[in-house]
């Protein structure tokens, strides 16, 4: 019998600790598939951030450095400057990248550091128990915005993809979602392109992935998936805002 589906080699066989319906597992797999596609497992260095994705090293069969909260892009920049022939990626949530680590990611992008940043935006702080994130939508309730996010007090949800696309440094800036099979296929392609940019030395590549957090949203996995389409995509539109020319290998 022919095997048609298997675990990517860039992943370990450790079961995910993620909550039911969380998208981290899907995004992890898409990143691992991209590493496998280009045969990068043995030359890749992952930079884990602080949040639910800190356990990157449990699930990826690659060398991993754990960065302080928000500093993954600076850590990755340091690693890549030394190991220019290796592949370096960060995997960061919205609290990590868009609040405490905003300066680091903007300057890594602006320098065009030849790294890949996977930004998982679930509009909430997951690991710490559902506090308001910089990407929390207006009116969205969280444990620190119990009456809903109010733009007069909290400002508006920050659009990192749009901000970074305005810079000269990045090679690829794109927002994807993994809430439907169709969107997963598109996300797979974009994540692969992001690593291709790095392989070809085109500079900083950035993929924002809209993601669920059913536990902290207080929703069933199915309802959380629906919320991506109904509430998140209208405010955080999908699409590639910036892309350098690259040979389409897909």
């Amino acid at each position, binding site marked *: 019998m022919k095997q048609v589906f298997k675990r990517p080699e860039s992943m370990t066989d450790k079961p995910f600790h993620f909550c039911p319906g969380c998208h981290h597992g899907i995004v992890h797999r898409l990143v691992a598939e991209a590493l496998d596609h280009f045969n990068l497992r043995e030359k890749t260095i992952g930079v884990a951030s602080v949040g639910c994705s800190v356990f990157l090293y449990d699930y990826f069969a690659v060398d991993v450095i754990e960065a302080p909260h928000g500093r993954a892009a600076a850590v990755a920049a*340091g690693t890549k400057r030394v190991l220019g022939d290796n592949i370096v990626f960060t995997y960061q949530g919205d609290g990590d990248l868009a609040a405490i680590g905003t300066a680091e990611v903007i300057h890594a992008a602006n320098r065009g550091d030849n790294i890949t940043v996977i930004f998982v935006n679930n509009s909430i702080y997951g690991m710490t128990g559902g506090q308001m994130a910089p990407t929390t939508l207006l009116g969205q309730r969280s444990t620190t915005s119990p009456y809903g996010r109010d733009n007069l007090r909290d400002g508006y949800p920050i659009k990192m993809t749009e901000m970074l696309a305005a810079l000269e440094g990045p090679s690829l800036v794109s927002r994807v979602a993994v809430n439907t099979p169709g969107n997963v296929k598109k996300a797979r392609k974009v994540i692969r392109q992001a690593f291709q940019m790095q392989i070809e030395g085109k500079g900083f590549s950035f993929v924002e992935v809209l993601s669920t957090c059913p536990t902290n949203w207080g929703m069933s996995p199915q309802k959380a998936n629906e919320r991506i389409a109904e509430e998140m995509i209208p405010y955080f539109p999908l699409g590639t805002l910036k892309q350098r020319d690259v040979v389409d290998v897909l």
Partner: protein
Amino acid sequence: MSKPLKKVFSKGNEAIAMAAINAGCHYYFGYPITPQNEIPEYMAEHLPAVGGEFLQAESEIASINMLLGAAATGVRVMTSSSGPGISLMQEGFSYFAGNELPAVVVNMSRQGPGLGGINATQGDYFQSVKGGGHGDYKLIVLAPHTGQELYDLTIKAFELAEKYRMLTLVLGDAILGQIKEPITPWVPEKTSGGDDRDWLITGAKGRPPRRITSLFLADGEMEKHNWHLQEKYARLERDDVMVEDRDTADAKLVVVAFGSVARIVKSAIDQARAAGMKVGLVRPITLFPFPRKLLGELGGNCKNFLVAEMNTGQMVEDVKLALPGDCTVDFYGRPGGSVPTPEDLYEVISATYSKHKL
């Protein structure tokens, strides 16, 4: 063992940069701040020629984290800063300790608190040796007092950092960084920690994946890790204390001072000796590990000590803890904004000598 090079006339900051490159440090990440700018400027000019890379970061927070990412690969790396910038790096220092990564940081300290002033001070002693970041950790802290020593100890800093997988802080000040002196540079035999270390992050080619982490959530793991760190600190205290012990054999009064103050104290002690006073000097070169053992032993013979610092009393606490309880410890301190002259210190030594009827 080492290869001496042609003597040069160099600023302290340049001596550090030169030493770092000769020690095999080919990566530098930093952010401008006075009074240490000659270090990044020298690195920016000279690193390309050795195939290295200088990168100016967007902040000291970014510098220390770039350093972390580079240190994880095992290469020799350095950053430098002063007061406010070193404060911003404290989070990173704590992660270096937890992650057990080797690197060198230079603090050419300036006056504080706050924006303070750009001249010399020793107000960062507590921050350096007591741990300015979170957690129960130490840095190796080296305190040079001449241009040549800035050079020598920068090389030593890389060796100690690698030996213990720790961050080594070279603590100077504006005087030491800016003063121009003749220096004999040299190249150490060993200019790398080696590629065979079993923790280097290089990509998992033909071996199991590795991780650099300071997160320990499993039952008992955190305590085990902390005891492991403490064991390293104990080993440092046993094997790698450096101290200058000068004229203490017959001394009735021993002055304890480090860095640029120790240098000024030496002139004052020469005057005191010429005037017939039996005065010695203990100059801690490693501020951590602190020369507790030597002071404790010395306190068995000599009973009178004087601590001089360019702060209002920081190292004096460690001196008191190290000495037997029957020793007297006088203190002379000047806060940021002033530098004592040899004459000031001579007066203090002379007055302390008389006060205790020595």
